[in-house]
């Protein structure tokens, strides 16, 4: 009986795949010879994946370097407005308990395909109902005393804004612990401010497909109790998700818009390994 099943399925797969073209074998071998003799440099997948965290580390290192540069340069100390030089990180005052202003523009990994989203901790679509008060990501929500901006960045401190959703549909869930709050990166606490243009802040009332990652706990660990909205893709009334917005530079479309039905993304997510 088993053999009968096997035989029928085997035949069905033969029907499905068909026989490869007779020339394919010679074509593969010829292609192999061309590639080998050309000795093309090949980037291994490991190197490719390592490039992402390395890029992030470089961004942080670059940011930290610019803080120090800003601090030492007589031309830029204390300048956070006006004709200040454009830099990934600009710091106002870095001494004592004076205000801290951090502005980051990180070049980071972005989830843009369902296949990539498969690896995220949580993917969900929902509507933002409200934001709470901004707070530092510390136990009491205040800035730890005695730290300057560069140390705050290096040690993983940041200002976050808790966000609530009126409806949240879970599309992909790898969590092992319950979530107590969702946050977006950035905000203002007292005189301190923190902005990171790479992180989204969907507006109240808007619906979005969101990718969540664990929150960074100062000191080097992560927690699933507080999840960060890492990417947010707007969903319109026709259930179309904008995965990539149109951008216009100097009157020309430099990047075309990419819209995909939410149902297609969910179908892809359902097939995650």
């Amino acid at each position, binding site marked *: 009986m088993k053999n009968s099943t096997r035989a029928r399925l085997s*035949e069905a797969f033969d029907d499905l795949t068909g026989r490869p073209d007779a020339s394919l074998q010679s074509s593969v071998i010829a292609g192999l010879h061309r590639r080998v003799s050309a000795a093309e440099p090949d980037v291994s997948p490991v190197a490719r994946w390592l490039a992402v965290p390395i890029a992030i580390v470089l961004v942080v290192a670059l940011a930290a370097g610019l803080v120090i540069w800003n601090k030492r340069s007589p031309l830029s100390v204390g300048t956070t407005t006006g004709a200040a030089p454009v830099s990934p990180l600009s710091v106002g005052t870095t001494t004592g308990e004076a205000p801290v202003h951090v502005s980051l523009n990180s070049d980071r990994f972005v989830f843009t395909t369902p296949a990539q989203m498969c690896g995220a901790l949580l993917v969900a679509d929902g509507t933002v109902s409200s934001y709470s008060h901004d707070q530092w990501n510390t136990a009491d929500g205040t800035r730890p005393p005695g730290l300057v901006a560069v140390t705050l960045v290096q040690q993983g401190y940041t200002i976050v804004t808790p966000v609530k959703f009126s409806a949240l549909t879970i599309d992909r869930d790898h969590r092992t612990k319950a979530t107590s709050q969702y946050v977006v990166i950035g905000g203002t606490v007292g005189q301190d401010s923190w902005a990171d243009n790479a992180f989204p802040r969907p507006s109240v009332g808007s619906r979005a497909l969101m990718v969540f990652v664990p929150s960074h706990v100062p000191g080097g660990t992560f927690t699933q109790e507080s999840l960060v909205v890492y990417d947010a893709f707007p969903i319109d009334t026709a259930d179309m998700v904008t995965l990539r917005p149109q951008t216009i530079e100097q009157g020309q479309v430099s990047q075309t818009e990419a819209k995909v039905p939410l149902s297609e993304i969910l179908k892809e997510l359902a097939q995650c390994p």
Partner: protein
Amino acid sequence: MWVAENELLTEPEAPSLLRDAQAGDLKAFEILLEPLLDPAYRLAVVMLQDRTEAEDVLQEAAFRAWKSLQSFRRDRSSLKPWFLTIVANQCRQTRRTRWWSVLRGPMLVREPMEPEDTALERSDLARAIAKLGREDRVALHLYFGLDMPIDQVTRLLGVSPRGAKSRIHRTLKRLRLNLEGQEIQLP
């Protein structure tokens, strides 16, 4: 001519082929590769549902296999699952890339296989298989289509043995439900 998928050289000089290939003998690698191309092509078609892309994947996988052959440390019998794993990974990579190319093009979704495909018309079972989820289809193909033992299916899918068996059972069950009147026995 294509060599049968389960054909493995048994001549006395066969074991040295792997050593020669690992030492940089491209001809030896070709001889090792030839019997693997048929199952590799079939796997790629099952995963991508596109014959042209499957051929492209084969080209790339052959080159990648050559490049990483020196790190292959098992015996020759493991060559087939090893190469099929490279093909499967390349298919997954192609699918990710394809998502972007699909986004750029006017069509958002590609139809799986051509509807006028005569092979599909010949077989309701093949049609039902084509509608399965990708990973379910692949699990079934590895086990029944390529006749691979469950431990190799497990390795290739990157799941536990129990997970692989359960996926095959579940898929067979689903096929039986989808195919009215066509009874399929569970393994």
